[in-house]
């Protein structure tokens, strides 16, 4: 492994200053499940590694004043999976429990998953579906943006190596709502998504769909918020035909590539299938049913 200096700042300011003073030659370390592998395999170079896990506010997970969820950027998947406040954010839990195996989840953070900015990141479609906002610190102050604007391409995000992700803020959930995340992998565990989808549904009192968000992963340079297909659900009474139509529409938004994980054609098909399935699951969950694809 390449040589580097290790820093463990105790505050966001200290971390941001370190980041600025090391002139682009540093990397932030949260769970390290991507970063340490990238450093070891020389896919990334750093003279300084800045461990953010000693910054107390980054490891906090709590309900916000408006009833949403605030997730410090160093919160691990395991922490998330066992926390009360996060329990209703089922799509995010769906993602957190399939990011690697248990050993990975003990270390990997949702913030790190987002900052690594892989198009196939499992948490990102879930965050998009749940309407997350990102807060990050830069030398010039704290900034916020929608999670949909955060990633800018494979391995790239708006911070451009100059910022520190502080927290993710998830919107309050509607009273009759459900969410889901599902991915396709060739095995049943330990794999990178070939395609994925996240969905959030909120039902009105009359059973029609009041709010809907659909997100697609691994089928473009970054995760895609499928706004139009989701809007087509609003005001409608859920039905298999409706979901089928919307899933087909969503699949047309996928712009995947051919690679060893799958062909363009296959990924478009998977997008259709996964959108359909996540919408079904989200609706069942909105109706109060417990649906789980993996033991939790």
């Amino acid at each position, binding site marked *: 492994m390449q040589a580097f200096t290790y820093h463990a700042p105790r505050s966001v300011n200290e971390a941001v200053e370190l980041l600025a003073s090391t002139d682009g030659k540093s990397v932030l370390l949260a769970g390290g499940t991507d970063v340490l592998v990238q450093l070891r395999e020389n896919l990334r170079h750093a003279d300084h590694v800045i461990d953010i896990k000693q910054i107390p506010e980054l490891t906090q997970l709590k309900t916000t004043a408006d009833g949403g969820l605030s997730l410090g950027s160093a919160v691990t998947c395991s922490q998330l999976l066992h926390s009360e406040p996060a329990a209703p954010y089922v799509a995010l839990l769906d993602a957190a429990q399939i990011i690697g*195996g248990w050993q990975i989840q003990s270390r990997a953070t949702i913030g790190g998953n987002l900052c690594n900015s892989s198009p196939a990141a499992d948490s990102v479609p879930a965050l998009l579906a749940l309407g997350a906002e990102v807060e990050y610190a830069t030398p010039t102050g704290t900034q916020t943006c929608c999670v949909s604007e955060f990633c800018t391409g494979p391995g790239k995000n708006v911070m451009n190596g100059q910022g520190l992700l502080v927290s993710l803020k998830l919107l309050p959930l509607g009273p009759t709502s459900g969410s889901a995340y599902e991915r396709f992998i060739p095995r049943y565990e330990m794999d990178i998504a070939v395609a994925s989808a996240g969905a959030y549904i909120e039902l009105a009192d009359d059973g029609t769909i009041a709010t809907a968000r659909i997100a697609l992963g691994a089928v473009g340079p970054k995760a895609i918020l499928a706004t139009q297909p989701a809007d087509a659900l609003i005001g409608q009474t859920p039905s298999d035909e409706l979901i089928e139509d919307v899933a087909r529409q969503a699949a047309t938004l996928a712009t995947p590539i051919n690679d060893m994980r799958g062909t363009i054609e296959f990924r478009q098909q998977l997008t259709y299938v996964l959108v359909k399935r996540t919408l079904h699951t989200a609706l069942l969950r909105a109706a109060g049913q417990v649906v789980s694809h993996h033991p939790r």
Partner: protein
Amino acid sequence: MPGKAPAKMAISTTINGQNYDFLCEPRQSLLEVLRDSLQLTGAKEGCNNGNCGACTVLLDGEPVNSCIVLAVEVQGRELTTIEGIANRGELHPIQQCFLEGAALQCGICTPGFIVAAKALLDKKPNPSEEEIRFALAGNLCRCTGYDKIVRSVQAASERIQAGSTPKQNPQPNQTNQQQAQQQQ
């Protein structure tokens, strides 16, 4: 390009209930330090990038791949390694059940599986087969096809729940002859 390695750092940590102080370079993984500096070679190196689970140790009770933890990150934390699973001359029920259930062939993945299985049974004493398989999916075994591993974790779960103390290794002569008689 190679540069001069930054100074070593002094780390204090607790491993298997004992205090350890060691010096390490920031770039050294926990696995490297455990194995090469502290001579705790029970955690195995299978892939060195977090995909096989052979190097699993417990970090504050949670299973982690020690190959993708920096040694400097364990300052002030508590570690359990395979060396800390048996209790003063007595095997842990998981270890005993792995032996009785023939849950190992080459044995290289075995320490990682036992540590991960302990984490599981500590948290969930009576897991279903699916829960065991899901919890152990981060540990690869290429020899056994997993059947006997899963069964041994089930057996350990039953044994722990029954509260029986782990069996001592019986007198060799007796076991074998008893078994031989049962076969006849």
